[in-house]
């Protein structure tokens, strides 16, 4: 089993990256790999509660983050600096996450076998 980290750095909807990342995460989980997700920079916006995308004609995929647990994907990490500099707190997020310092996030990245960036 390899350690895979998916690094999410883009806001949802404006680009396809966030959705594509989720798809690959689910594939990796299906192959019984050790999967973790990191949310940095604008990627933190992917986890914001209350997304209602009906009027922009794009499926609201944010509930999928809540379903990850069912695929044994339970390691979701958020960099504190990215979250706080956007005026967000854990209470604004739709799933439980582990909030890490920048140094802790760096350390976690170093421990991975594969890092995929979105």
């Amino acid at each position, binding site marked *: 089993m390899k350690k895979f980290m998916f690094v999410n750095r883009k*806001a*949802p*909807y*404006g680009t396809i990256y966030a959705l594509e990342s989720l798809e690959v995460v689910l594939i990796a989980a299906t192959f019984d790999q050790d999967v973790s997700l990191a949310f940095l920079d604008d990627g933190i*916006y992917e986890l914001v509660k209350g*997304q*209602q995308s009906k009027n*922009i004609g794009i499926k609201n995929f*944010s509930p999928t983050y809540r379903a990850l647990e069912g695929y044994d994907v339970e390691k979701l990490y958020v960099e504190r600096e990215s979250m706080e500099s956007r*005026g967000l707190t854990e209470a604004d997020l739709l799933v439980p996450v582990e909030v890490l310092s920048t140094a802790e996030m760096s350390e976690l990245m170093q421990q991975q076998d594969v890092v995929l960036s979105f």
Partner: protein
Amino acid sequence: MLHIVNKSHRQTASLESALRLARDGDALLLIEDGVYAATAGGAVMAGIASAVDRLKIYALQPDLEARGMAGALVAGVAAVDYAGFVDLVVEHPTSQSWL
């Protein structure tokens, strides 16, 4: 003149450039990922909070809603729907999309 910005101020310099080039009294419409600049957590850093006095600033409501940001719009920025977007384009002889 109408300036339209569709990128996050944290990802590209589009908004920064639009604000630098916009003249007093111009209109600025934030759409797609551009709307984060008009939210409580972003307006100061993005320069929107200090631009509301010299520009007419708008944010597209459906894009705010999609991102869970409809409740976070800062004072001085007006939410517009798609019809309002069209009105803004019609009202201004020139539009610039800062891609």
